[in-house]
């Protein structure tokens, strides 16, 4: 359980957030410069906020108004940034044991052996950091942080400097370790895929403010505003011209919708929820069918994003490569897509 209420004015930028995470794996998500790193640094204690408090597992670590400010070394917060932070003048074993010695913890040989086994760093103990690869360095950093049994682990894009396969391996390792040792974590990232994969709970940040927070599935399926929808990969964002109880009008098209909640100025549909229809079959029973022309193809590994134009409307649909090949779609093809009622969500400006 982590609660952080933080206000800080940096002159040209300010942070004003309330973050509450109850889960194990929590993500702070936002573009670069949205204040994610600064928030983590204030929670660890590298910066002090102008006002606010930090409460971790019911312990008040910081309360500016009441003059509570636990020093960094007593907060019990592990911190792993993107940069490599292994002490260059100590071998890996000394790095790993630094915290245990500093905190005068009883050395738990079993836990140590288990952790280095899990992380696959057993045979690195006598090496120095400059002899390790980036991935190995971050593995060691992770284990070094876990060995002092922190209340919570803060990770500031820890794997962004690594190559993709190594990044995935490390994300899996992190996830396994947090689960098996039951240590909550806040993971900062600007990578949508990483956020989605890691998070139980997520808070989305924009220019120093939390713009939406909650359980991952809720947030990812119903963004509250246009900017959140954009961040979460909803490529289809349409302004609503007319709103009726079960129908909306967008650029002259009327779409059936279901249970639109909250204030609705825009509708959002993920490109993967825009289904490509086979026109050689009966499509009269399909919902919200749009006929259009494929303007452009954007290839991604394993999938293709189609940009489809129908009169004034541009619709994005993500389909597998296989479908594209099988249906013989190319730029200029005429296609039909269905915008399923259930996948249409709405939100504010």
């Amino acid at each position, binding site marked *: 359980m982590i609660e952080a209420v933080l206000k800080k004015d940096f002159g040209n930028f300010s942070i004003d957030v309330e973050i509450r995470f109850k889960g194990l794996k929590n993500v702070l998500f936002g573009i670069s410069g949205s204040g994610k790193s600064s928030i983590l640094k204030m929670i660890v204690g590298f910066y002090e906020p102008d006002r606010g408090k930090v409460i971790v597992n019911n312990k008040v670590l910081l309360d500016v108004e009441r003059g509570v400010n636990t020093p*960094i*070394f007593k*907060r019990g917060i592990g*911190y792993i940034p993107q940069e490599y*932070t292994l*002490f260059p*003048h100590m071998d890996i074993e000394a790095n790993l044991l630094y915290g245990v010695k*500093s905190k005068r913890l009883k050395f738990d040989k079993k836990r140590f052996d288990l952790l280095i086994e899990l992380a696959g760093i057993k045979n690195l103990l006598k090496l120095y950091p400059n002899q390790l690869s980036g991935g190995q360095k971050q593995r060691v950093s992770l284990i070094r942080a876990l060995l002092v049994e922190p209340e919570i682990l803060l990770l500031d894009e820890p794997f962004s400097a690594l190559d993709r396969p190594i990044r995935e391996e490390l994300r899996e390792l992190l996830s396994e370790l947090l689960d098996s040792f039951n240590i909550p974590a806040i993971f900062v990232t600007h990578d949508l895929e990483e956020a989605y994969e890691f998070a139980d709970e997520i808070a989305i940040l924009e220019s120093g403010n939390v713009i939406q927070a909650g359980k991952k599935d809720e947030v990812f399926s119903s963004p509250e505003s246009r900017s959140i929808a954009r961040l979460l990969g909803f490529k289809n964002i349409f302004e609503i011209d007319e709103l009726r109880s079960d129908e909306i009008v967008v650029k002259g098209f009327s779409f059936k919708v279901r249970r639109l909640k909250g204030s609705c100025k825009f509708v959002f549909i993920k490109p993967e929820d825009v289904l490509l229809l086979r026109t050689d079959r009966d499509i009269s029973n399909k919902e919200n069918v749009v006929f259009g022309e494929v303007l452009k193809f954007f290839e991604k590994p394993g999938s293709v994003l189609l940009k489809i134009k129908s009169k004034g409307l541009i619709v994005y649909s993500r389909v597998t490569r296989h479908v594209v090949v099988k249906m013989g779609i190319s730029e200029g093809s005429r296609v039909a897509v269905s915008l399923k009622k259930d996948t249409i969500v709405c939100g504010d400006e």
Partner: protein
Amino acid sequence: MKLTKFSFIPAILLVAFVLLVIIWGFLGVTLSDFRKLFLDGEFISAVVFGLETSFTSVFLSCLLGVPTGFMLARSDRFLSKFLDAIFDVPIIIPPLIVGVLLLNVFNNSFIGKFYSFIFTFWGAAIAQFFIAFPFTVKASKSAFELVSPIYERIAMTLGANYYKSFFDTTFKLARNSILSGLVLSWLRSLGEFGATLIVGGGIAYKTENIPINIYLKIMEGNFREGLAASLFIVLVAFLCVLFIKLILAKSKIML
């Protein structure tokens, strides 16, 4: 590629110039000149006085200069630049003039009431300190700047308090560069002439250091002895540089 080949020529010329001057020096003396030098009581006394004053100067530089360097490395840019400019002053003023300025201060009757610095050990040591400490400050500043503060912060998240985290990480990582700055300060103090002469007076067996001894030898017409003493300083300087290169190479491997 062509340009690098071309720039070899001035490089070779410069190396030849340095080597020629030094080798020429060694050709001008024999072993017996060195033997005679170390039997010369006045020279030995100058060596002892030189060592004592230079170590005092370096000790004071270390005590005040290293923390100052740390402060400059960690403080904001404006303050750091301003103070840095002030510490350039002792470096750019010619040593002889530093001596004159210090003499002017020590001549003050108010200071004279407490201690008479003129023509004494402490006068000479302080003169050398004034000239040498900026090197320590600058070396420490760049040494601390080279070490990212992140190590210290991480050490704190691992439970080390403010002092322990600093000494275990930042200080240990900067230590060798600081040490080489101190060696340079020491060498500078050992070879200091102008200010030491003006403030200390260059009194034989009392406030005479090696450069003053060399100067006096040459003025008295003992050129070969003066040359031998000069080459002694060259050897000491060479050993110092060797030492610095060694310890710095060792710390480069880590960083």
